[in-house]
């Protein structure tokens, strides 16, 4: 590298480092949160150390029982017991009350604890419980990632979670289904709009661009809430349909998958229109005239000349719309029904309501990985989705 290039690289290096760090650091933190399991090791350090030293067969020695109860009571006193209870109760419901009950009863329990604890609650005598506790004492866990794929660690290794709780695989499928439909609809609607904008006389084109950009700049919450007003039973659409006599009962449009599609396409359309517009504006009109002069009918001119030239724009717009759609939370939450919620709804639920960072991070990591895989596959199979240049 010449001296000039080295100098240029050195000047850019700090900023490049900053950008890389501010991009990679949060991703790394999320990945770490998805697998870290420090709750028990932090709040009950000596118990955790003893459990790690134990071989996992049968029941642990008597000292472990005593140390566990001692540290549970200490953690209760200094208010650090919460994360332990949440972590264990998440893996198996009922452990929260079992541990609290034992901590409260500890002063009255007779020695040896390995006999008196199971009298308090039979689960204390179950080797599976102690193995679960041992697993939670290591620094990391696959629990959250497995649960996000509807799997869990059972008696004989990995097994599926019961049907009543298995919801995430279906949720991922639904998220990708909704995103694909929205991407397709956006591409179909954006194409003629962008074509119009690119070929209209300048005054009209400017007005058109403004009409595309102003909603783009309006708050997404306002736009989504507006759809509620439009689509409701006593809203303008139903009023018009009833007045025209096309229906005799108002249609249910809000809180349905239809409403989700409409609102998402409305919000994401500018992302599809603008790249397309940019690409279309740069296509010289001479190409179409040349094709016409060589005898191609309009449909053939479009298919063989125009469409391939605009594919990079379609690709760029579609990828952007898809990636945004996959992460959508507010719009399905406000206008969709309970069967239309996407993965991000659950990420928000685990972050805001149950404060389960592990699950939120695991779902986010898996969503990111699946989306990346999806786009990579699409680039391999869909023509024109490759980097930049138009392909024949």
């Amino acid at each position, binding site marked *: 590298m010449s001296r000039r290039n080295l100098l240029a690289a050195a000047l850019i290096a700090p900023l490049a480092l900053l950008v890389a760090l501010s991009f990679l650091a949060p991703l790394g933190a999320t990945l770490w949160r998805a697998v870290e399991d420090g709750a028990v090791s932090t709040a009950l350090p000596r118990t955790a150390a003893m459990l790690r030293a134990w071989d996992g067969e049968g029941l642990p020695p008597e000292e472990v029982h005593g140390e566990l109860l001692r540290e549970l009571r200490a953690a209760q006193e200094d*208010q650090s017991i*919460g*994360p332990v209870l949440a972590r264990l109760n*998440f893996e198996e419901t009922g452990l929260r009350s079992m541990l609290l009950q034992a901590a409260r009863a500890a002063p009255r329990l007779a020695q040896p604890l390995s006999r008196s604890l199971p009298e308090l609650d039979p689960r204390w005598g179950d080797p599976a419980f102690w193995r679960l506790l041992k697993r939670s004492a290591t620094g990391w866990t696959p629990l959250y990632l497995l649960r996000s794929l509807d799997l869990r660690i059972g008696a004989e290794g990995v097994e599926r979670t019961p049907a009543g*709780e298995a919801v995430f695989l279906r949720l991922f499928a639904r998220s990708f289904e909704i995103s694909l439909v929205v991407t397709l609809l956006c591409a179909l609607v954006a194409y003629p709009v962008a074509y119009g904008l690119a070929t209209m006389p300048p005054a009209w084109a400017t007005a058109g661009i403004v009409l595309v950009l102003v909603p783009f700049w309006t708050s997404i919450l306002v736009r989504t809430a507006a759809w509620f007003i439009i689509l409701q039973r*006593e809203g303008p659409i139903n009023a018009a349909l009833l007045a025209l006599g096309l229906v005799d009962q108002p249609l249910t449009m809000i809180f349905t998958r239809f409403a989700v599609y409409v609102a998402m396409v409305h919000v994401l359309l500018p992302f599809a229109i603008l790249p397309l517009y940019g690409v279309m504006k740069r296509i010289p009109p001479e190409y179409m005239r040349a094709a016409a002069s060589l005898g191609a009918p309009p449909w053939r001119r479009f298919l063989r000349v125009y469409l391939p030239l605009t594919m990079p724009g379609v690709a760029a717009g579609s990828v952007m719309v898809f990636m945004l759609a996959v992460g959508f939370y507010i719009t399905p939450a406000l206008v969709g029904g*309970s069967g239309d919620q996407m993965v991000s709804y659950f990420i928000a639920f685990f972050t*805001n*309501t149950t*404060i389960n960072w592990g699950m939120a991070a695991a779902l986010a990591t898996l969503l990111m990985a699946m989306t990346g895989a999806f786009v990579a596959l699409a680039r391999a199979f869909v023509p024109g989705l490759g980097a930049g240049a138009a392909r024949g």
Partner: protein
Amino acid sequence: MTTRSMLSAAAIAAALLAAAPAADARDLTVIGFGGGFQDNARKHLFQGYARERGVKVADDVYNGEMAKIYSMVKANDVTWDAVMVEAPELVRGCEDGVFEKMDWNVVNKAKFIPAGTTTCGAGAVGWGVTMFYDQARVAAGPTDFAGFWDVQKFPGKRSLRSMAKTTMEVALMADGVAAADVYKVLRTPAGQQRAFAKLDQLKPHLVWWKSGAQPLQLVGSGEVAYALGFVGRTIRAADGGAKYPILWNTLLYSFDYWAVVRNSPHKAEAMKLVEYMTDEKPLLALAQDWAVSPATASVASNPDVAKRNPGMVASHASKGLFIDTDFWVENGEDLEAKFNAWLAR
């Protein structure tokens, strides 16, 4: 770059730096659930304290989501001082160490009604949800939860809170379980199955709400025929002219508590604020403007307050169901997860 443009750039940079807010020195901040209660509380409780002690008190609104408080405490950058919390979140927050233990030397423990205090919380107000509908659209609607479930007799959409808490109890009561046995049944897996099966019956007709204003909006716009909503807001709407009946036999109630966020820089001041906000005089002043259901015994039993607030939950407690705090602390996480899984099916 010319000297002039460099100088103007430097001047702008200096101005921006000077305008940057000071790192410390923020006001005592109290957080509530908003609505009419908070507007009136601001006048009598928050600003009342500010006037008396000469400190500045700012207030803000949240929706009950604890994540922000947890992050604040974890990052040791606490910007909220006193918060109004629902009972199970308070107990869990106390266990998790995000709330300070109440300083009973500052806050007088004896002035509260029974169940009015917990380790980290001092009772603020009672709240409840009841079933309601628009009598302008439906002259005679259902009178109990069994009727809420009867789509043949009372057609139309229904709305329930998008949470397991209150929804599961309502489902069991609609299935014929007596109020006294609801939590006993709900503790068992069979009882939970029963509740979900009952909810399955109503699912195609259900619209879910998350924030307190939504049920009023849904019923008011005719989108939903019958809804479960916060009784305070329903009474307020009825006072404002809407024809919403208040069905006390469908009441589910609990208490909200004031809590102080752990490691808040204004910890001591916040405790004094809590003591003031639960005191008799400020609450009586508040009761003049807004129907309160206080947890302070002397105010709750004050006949003038009871007359002004026919909606005080304490006076209808006998007809309603108390939302069991301990039950929801123990089973909340599991049931909410199951509920969300059911919802997503």
